[in-house]
């Protein structure tokens, strides 16, 4: 039955694909689940009214109960498919967030390296400035180069300051991404839990509708001790 419903879902998705090329498959599953749920609700709400006008052994009576039961199976299968897909996506999201956290840690760590490198470069340039000042004593025309070197030293100093500022943001960003990973993990666990609970719920709905069909058979048996007639399926 579940395979059949999955196949129908696949067909429904395939049919809707050309119209919504970029649609999220999860959204499509959600729509299918919502529609199946609405269908069941409509049938379930109208069941008592529908069979109230029928004789207990009227084949339409049992067929109406079985129709609601099938609709219930269909909506639970559709919801299960949606929840399983959601849980799978949540797991993928959790894994992705973990990778993003790891990648970001490496990227943010780069700012610490940038800061260290800029400080080292500045030390080298300052030594060059000192050497150039010495040379300027014999060759005054080097003053232009010396000024430019001092300017470069300032640029590298600014670079070091900016790198330090960025590396200061590192912990905060890592913390936010850590929170994101935890939140995704919580969502994944909640969805997996919901999916498992739905499986248990499905078994109990089946038990309920089995009991409901059984009541219909009993109602007929009270009036007509013979086996209840059943409408042939076309």
């Amino acid at each position, binding site marked *: 039955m579940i395979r059949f419903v999955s196949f129908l879902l696949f067909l429904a998705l395939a049919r809707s694909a050309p119209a919504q090329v970029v649609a999220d498959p999860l*959204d499509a599953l959600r729509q299918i689940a919502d529609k199946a*749920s609405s269908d069941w*609700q409509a049938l379930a709400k109208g069941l008592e009214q529908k069979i109230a006008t029928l004789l207990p052994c009227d084949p339409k009576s049992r067929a109406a109960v079985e129709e609601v039961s099938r609709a219930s199976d269909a909506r639970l299968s559709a919801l299960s498919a949606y929840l399983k897909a959601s849980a799978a996506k949540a797991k993928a*999201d959790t*894994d*992705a*967030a973990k990778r993003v956290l790891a*990648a970001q840690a*490496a*990227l*943010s760590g*780069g*700012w610490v390296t*940038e800061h260290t*490198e800029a400080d080292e470069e500045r030390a*080298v340039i300052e030594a060059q400035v000192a*050497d150039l000042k*010495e*040379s*300027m*004593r*014999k*060759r*005054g*025309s*080097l003053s*232009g*180069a010396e000024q*430019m070197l001092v300017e*470069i030293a300032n*640029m590298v100093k600014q*670079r070091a300051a*900016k790198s330090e500022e*960025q590396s200061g*943001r590192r912990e905060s*960003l890592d913390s*936010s*991404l850590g*929170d*994101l990973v*935890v*939140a*995704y993990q*919580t*969502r994944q666990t*909640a*969805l997996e*839990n*919901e999916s498992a609970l739905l499986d*248990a*719920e499905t078994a*109990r709905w089946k038990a*309920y509708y089995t*009991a*409901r069909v*059984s*009541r219909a058979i*009993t*109602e007929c*048996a009270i009036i007509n001790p013979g086996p209840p007639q059943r409408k042939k399926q076309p």
Partner: protein
Amino acid sequence: MKRACLFAIVAVMSLAQRSRDDYRAVYRGWKQTDPNLERDASTGGAAIAQRADRMAAEAARSAAARKEFLEGTAQDEAQQVEWLENASLIPESTSKSDEQFIKSEAAAVTRTIDTFANDPDKGMQQLRQALAKERVALDTLAPVIAQRKKAAEEVTASTGAIEQARTKALEQSQAMLEGFKNAGASASSEAAAWAEYYRKIGEAAQGTATPITEVLPGAPPAVLNNPVPAPPTVTPLPLARYVGAWTFPQTNALYHGPQPEFIDLLVHEENGHATGSAFARFKLPPGSTGDPIVRFDFSGEFQPARRQVFNLVTAEGAKGTIELIPGPAFNLLEINFQTELKPGKIHQADVVLVKK
């Protein structure tokens, strides 16, 4: 698809790491190419210009490697930002219809059971049993539905937490991306500055060496407020620019080579003939056992040139020369002396003195 994107991120990350190593290797290569260029720049000439050109090429290579690395890093960060932008979730909605249905069905079944509660008819008892089974099934459904509802509410709550953390991380990640982009732009500015620096070194290497006391082109000449005709001399500048008592200033001192502690120089002139003496003490490197004292006498004829060169003899008998170079101001005189090498003795110095 997203997984593929993440594998791509990981791949790009490792590329970026390689790129940092690559660019640092190029940077080290640049710095090791000619570490003495600045020290040797005073010698000037085509050799220095060529060395500056080579360094300019190495600097350009290093800048290109750094820019490539920073661009790669910015791309990596942009992918992080893109993922965070697209990771928003649609809030889940929980339905109450199942609970309502169970409640109303259970009530209806209970009512029917109650109706037939005391009916002794066998058929009615069978129906009551069927209804009781139905009631049990409904009763067992209710707690499972409540549990699933609770799990669904946890899903909804986690969506809020995800959104909060995602928005915060996105904002911070965008600031970091901006930082990498700015670093790339700064790298371009630095690259241009290095190119200009080496161009200036090459430019300065051309022509003869001009000491720091040389009046640079464009500098306004010194003008006396009460000019009197100077006596005719063989030198192009007044003799007063050479003769007199000169000393090493204790502040704003200018020198090349060993650092003097003090220098006293006396220069006399008589009929175009110069005589003079110098007494100096220099700072020696720590641990040095050399002699910090220098004494010498010098003499010679003044020449029709700006720079005057005279022979000298030190107190130890070493021979050498001293060059007197008038400074940009009337009270400044640069002296540049060299002597024969004597163990433990100062044999060369270049110092700007002020007139006493």
